[in-house]
């Protein structure tokens, strides 16, 4: 019995230590004044590999999600003769929740896992050590650009997700199922408020971007330098990021509904 309690205690202490390590990593990577001239092209590279290369999956997923929401929505609304509410239904679902959350989950799966694997591998093959010995701070050269890249790419991806999802819904709702285009758009415009709906969605995506990048980079940096270790780190990066996204989504939504 005492054994279990001491194990729990040790687990708790390890957890706090891990958070400490993560915090220090973030501080050392971001808070130290960055060298813009050298840093900027690196960040650009990262925005490309994390943002631009994720576009395919984001656009395809968002198109299908928009189409499905429209289909399901129409299916139910038509029973109440309320199919003119399809526009607002789709727009609000996407802009408030689906956009930020699904984009973040896809981003975690694609870019987050790549970040964790890359950094873990660089650590295992002693590339980070060689950098240190060459008097180049790996935290600023390798970790920080990836953090900034994720932080910047996420809201941009969310915006694109939102628009393609609404477009997908338009294709299904108006072109296929015959909802009146005027009703679709005007009801949508009347129900969607720029500040509380769209901007809040963007704020959420910024928070998610930060959290996903931080978790992925942390897992990669502290991975055990073996092939199993890196595989674990990659999985953990995706799983923890996903959980964090869903949990934070709830917290943020509660904060936003409760008066922002």
């Amino acid at each position, binding site marked *: 019995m005492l054994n279990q309690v001491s194990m729990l205690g040790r687990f708790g202490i390890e957890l706090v230590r891990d958070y400490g390590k993560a915090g220090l990593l973030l501080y050392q990577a971001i808070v130290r004044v960055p060298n813009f001239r*050298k840093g900027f092209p690196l960040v650009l590279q990262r925005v490309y590999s994390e943002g631009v290369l994720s576009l395919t999956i984001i656009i395809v997923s968002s198109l299908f999600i928009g189409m499905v929401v429209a289909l399901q929505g129409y299916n139910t609304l038509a029973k109440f003769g309320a199919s003119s509410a399809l526009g607002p239904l789709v727009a609000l679902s996407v802009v408030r929740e689906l956009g930020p959350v699904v984009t973040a989950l896809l981003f975690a799966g694609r870019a987050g896992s790549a970040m964790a694997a890359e950094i873990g*591998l*660089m650590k295992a*093959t*002693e*590339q980070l*050590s*060689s950098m*240190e*010995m*060459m*008097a*180049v*701070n790996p935290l600023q050269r390798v970790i920080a650009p990836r953090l900034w890249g994720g932080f910047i790419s996420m809201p941009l991806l969310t915006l694109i997700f939102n628009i393609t999802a609404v477009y997908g819904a338009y294709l299904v709702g108006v072109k296929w199922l015959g909802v009146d285009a005027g009703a679709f758009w005007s009801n949508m415009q009347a129900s969607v408020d720029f500040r509380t709906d769209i901007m809040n969605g963007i704020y959420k995506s910024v928070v998610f971007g930060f959290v996903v990048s931080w978790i992925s980079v942390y897992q990669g940096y502290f991975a055990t330098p073996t092939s199993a270790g890196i595989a674990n780190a990659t999985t953990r990066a995706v799983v923890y990021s996903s959980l964090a996204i869903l949990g934070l989504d709830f917290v943020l939504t509660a904060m936003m509904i409760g008066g922002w």
Partner: protein
Amino acid sequence: MDNLVEITNLHFNRNKRPIFTGIDLVIPRGKVIAILGPSGTGKTTLLKLIGGQLRPEQGTVKVAGQNIHQLSLTELYQLRKTMGMLFQSGGLFTHLSVFENVAFPLREHTRLSDAMIRSLVLIKLNMVGLRGARHLMPSELSGGMARRVALARAIALDPKLIMYDEPLSGQDPISMGVLIKLIRTLNDALGLTSVIVSHDVQETLSIADYVYVISNNKLIGQGTPDMITHDKSEQVQQFIKGLPDGPVPFHYPAEPFSKDLLEGVKAC
């Protein structure tokens, strides 16, 4: 003859296990110093301690007269620019070509023009005989070639001290010969101080000026290669001659063999 590196009374533990319990050694300028010992004695750790990547529990490591563990981060990075290190796996950046790998320290730490950097990179690559391979990617190189590129990168900034972590392990005889020749030639031609950590006795002894042998957390022998080969200590002799049994036993500690076998018989 002053010493570039002075290590006094070094104690270091990893996960509560002692790795070094009181090591004293000096690395004089301009020489090739070999640090030999069985695997697992912490030779790589020693290099990391010299480079300031690890902190000792006790004792001092002085590089060029400065206690490396008391330097601020900026000063430490300044000092590291005068040191080169060759890691066991090469540590080449997999996303950069051979040329870019060698150019990396130049681009990071100097403001030289592209033309100058190109010339310097070609010079360094030529020294290791890989000028023609400059556009290859690290994944396309053999182990020996990768190490040579890493060597070119380590000397890119013309360091004063260069440390080799097991440079010869896993190499075929030709690559070994090439690397060994390079280490000695570069040391003399560029006026470097080289520290080689290895367990390749014959090859290393052929180029070293002075040898330290570490085992069981302590220094068990030191001297010129000649002195070491004729050292009277049993431990040193077992290591140098590669004897399977001696102070480092063949059998992992276990019960007497007959007792072990008979227990299995009694059980049925």
